[in-house]
């Protein structure tokens, strides 16, 4: 099939979506053709999910229009979209775990006889329908008794039955194993052959190359490109996802002054189910950067280090002494700090004041019976707010009213207050306006110069390059490469992430 013959079924033109101050989507065009699988790629915060929500009717665009078969449409909600033929299957299956498979397929349109639901007919039709998807299961059993893969196929069957023009698959493979993925892909290929337009969202690049015909890549709310996949290789795709361009450089000037000190924290063979064992030592006054795509295991490593998820093996040494970290409280006691990826959900206490947010970790470390008095609290909050240049009208205002950058600095201040030995930062610049990025980067550099050991995860390659002494590259839940000194260059990182080993220096 050539592009010229392709007919766009669902088209989005010039879509803009603004949340508060933040432009989540900026003039994005997108078109899904009949009989193609169109992959949508981008890191967290790139605007993927916002675009999908607009395409399915969950959000309303602030500007731009949607066209279905060339006709403009205005979707009120996903149900309305479904009526137009746009069906969606989400990662977390949005079906009813407590009801039978057949009821999940027919809810809302059960055939009735004399006002009563005709169960026998539903079951027969459900069996019939699923057999077309190569599924031979007891349709009267509860949905929750089946694996996620089967549930996904049931969800697809329902979506196709109800919609039948466009099928949106939002990370359907995230919790499937290899065989299940293949089974799902066979189903999707069958639907593609029937002429459905399929929009496929995932962060597994190999799956994109396996299944999709075209790819649209988003970055920071803008469309980078829409291209046929047979003209691309993995390196191209990773480059488009992570870098504005490949011209950014490592700034060795920022690092020449830093002399690496003693080993502060050492992880030896730390592992957990779904994460390969890793060894890592972080020195005093050193930043170890982590690069890798979403789902490569970056966040899992951070959670393991901080004891959010318990390790299944390996040991942790702080200043040469072994410590046990089975929960975050022990991590704090060992002098660790952790700024998580989702600041709003896991980081700040939105309704508490700036001051309370700053002292909370220190207070937790001190325990219930050594409460900080108010003067101490005010003094501490003032000191760190000044040190980190936190801009708030006063320190008694709720932290949720601050900008993203200042919230991030409040969390940093919280950990600095406990006088940490080791700080873990997961995506410190996510969701912060671009202008404030530089400031966070500066702060990280300053903390390093003050002798702190830091472990920083980021999908912004130019930033990682700007502050890291060493960079660890993760792929498929494994640390696959470590780059240091002059090796730190965007190209080497992109290639290590894409997994083209012939080009990566060991």
């Amino acid at each position, binding site marked *: 099939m050539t592009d010229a013959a392709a007919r766009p079924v669902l088209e989005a033109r010039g879509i803009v979506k603004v949340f508060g101050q933040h432009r989540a989507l900026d003039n994005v065009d997108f078109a899904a053709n009949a009989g193609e699988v169109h992959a949508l790629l981008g890191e967290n915060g790139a605007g993927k999910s916002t675009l999908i929500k607009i395409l399915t009717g969950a959000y309303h665009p602030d500007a731009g229009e949607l066209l279905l078969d060339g006709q403009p449409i205005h979707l009120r909600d*996903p*149900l309305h979209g*479904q009526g137009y033929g746009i069906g969606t299957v989400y990662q977390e299956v*949005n*079906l*009813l*775990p*407590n*009801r039978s498979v057949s*009821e*999940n397929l027919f*809810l*809302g349109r*059960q055939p*009735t006889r004399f*006002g*009563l*639901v005709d*169960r026998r007919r539903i079951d027969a039709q459900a069996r019939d329908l699923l057999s077309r998807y190569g599924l031979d*299961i*007891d349709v009267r*059993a*509860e949905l*929750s*008794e*089946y*694996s996620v893969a*089967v549930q996904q196929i049931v969800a697809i069957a*329902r979506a196709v039955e109800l919609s039948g023009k466009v099928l949106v698959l939002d990370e359907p493979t995230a919790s499937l194993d290899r065989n299940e993925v293949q089974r799902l892909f066979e189903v999707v290929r069958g639907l593609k052959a029937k002429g459905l337009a399929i929009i496929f969202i995932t962060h597994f690049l190999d799956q994109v190359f396996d299944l999709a015909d075209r790819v649209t890549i988003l970055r920071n709310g803008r469309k980078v490109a829409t291209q046929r996949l047979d003209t691309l290789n993995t390196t191209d795709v990773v480059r488009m996802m992570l870098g504005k361009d490949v011209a950014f450089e490592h700034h060795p000037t920022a690092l020449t002054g830093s002399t690496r000190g003693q080993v502060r924290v050492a992880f030896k063979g730390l592992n957990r189910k779904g994460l390969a064992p890793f060894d890592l030592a972080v020195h005093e006054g050193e930043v170890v950067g982590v690069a890798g795509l979403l789902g490569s295991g970056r966040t899992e490593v951070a959670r393991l280090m901080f004891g959010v998820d318990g390790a299944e093996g390996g040991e942790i040494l702080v200043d040469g002494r072994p410590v046990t970290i089975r929960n975050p409280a022990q991590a704090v006691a060992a002098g660790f700090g952790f700024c998580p990826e989702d600041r709003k959900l896991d980081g700040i206490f939105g309704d508490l004041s700036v001051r309370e947010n700053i002292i909370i970790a220190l207070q937790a470390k001190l325990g219930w019976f050594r409460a900080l008095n108010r003067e101490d609290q005010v003094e501490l909050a003032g000191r760190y707010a000044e040190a980190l240049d936190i801009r708030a009208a006063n320190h008694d205002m709720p932290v949720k009213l601050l900008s993203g950058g200042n919230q991030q600095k409040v969390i940093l201040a919280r950990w600095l207050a406990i006088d940490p030995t080791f700080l873990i930062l997961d995506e410190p610049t996510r969701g912060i306006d671009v202008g404030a990025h530089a400031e966070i980067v500066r702060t990280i550099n300053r903390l390093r110069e003050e002798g702190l050991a830091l472990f920083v995860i980021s999908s912004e390659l130019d930033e990682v390059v700007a502050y890291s002494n060493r960079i660890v590259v993760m792929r498929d839940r494994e640390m696959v490469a470590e780059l240091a000194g002059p090796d730190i260059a965007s190209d080497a990182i992109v290639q290590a992430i894409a997994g083209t080993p012939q080009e990566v220096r060991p």
Partner: protein
Amino acid sequence: MTRSLRPLLATTLIFLFAYLLAVTQHPAMFSTRVLGNFLTDNAFLGIAAVGMTFVILSGGIDLSVGAVIGFTTVLIAVLIMWLSLHPLVAFAIALTVAACFGAVMGAAIHYLKVPSFIVTLAGMFLARGGASVLSPDSIGIQHAFYSGVSKSYILMPGGGRLTVVGIIMLAVFAVAILLAHRTRFGSNVYALGGSETSAALMGVPVARTTIAIYALSSFLAGLAGVVFSLYTSAGYSLNALGVELDAIAAVVIGGTLLTGGYGFVAGTFIGVMLQGLVQTYIVFDGTLSSWWTKIVVGVLLFMFIVLQRLVFRAGPRRT
């Protein structure tokens, strides 16, 4: 066998075992006379518990049930004795008022996004208070219709009497079983209990269903009030104090998951019967304080909550 059947099976077995135990000690309990009284005495609780079953299946709770029963008995007494209406007209008015009351609570729960616990708690105070305002004292009902109803029954083999109120309860259960398991409305109730988000995405009319569920619960509480009125021939604002809690207990003992989504109306019937059995046993025994009923119900409730945890914690997976 589906997991949700297991608590129901357990309840049934416990009921049969308890009944057997009671009969071996008091053989007189094995008779249709006892059965007849059993159904009559628990009719109002059973009817209220049916409404509660729908509410709990959908993931909510209705604390106003006992107060609505009390209010209905007072309203009926006022309409018959003070306004001289025919009892059937009074029943129709009372049931309409109750259903509207429930619909308003359902609308508040859905549109104001307030937890059902709070809304129905407010409803409980309103209904109880309203009943006291209508009449703080008990009003006796003297009417030919009432005496006629109390005299009519179907004689069962063995001399047991199946009274009108007993028949009403059985009919309510029969209709409710069809409603829950064989209609779209029933499916929607279970869908809400499973996941409200998914249900909305799958096209379940969430607003309409929520309002209908609470209207149904209050309507059945009203019907329980009618039955209570026929049973006691009086209206009193403090009637049926705490019946909502007995109803919740019957629903949970009947195998319905308190968090919604799983359960059977038939289970509630056995739940009610089990509570009735304990009461009857205590009457037959004669030496036990009636408070033992509460203790047994408490123990049963606790057992069932533990049982449900065990059944639902680790579900078996098929491939």
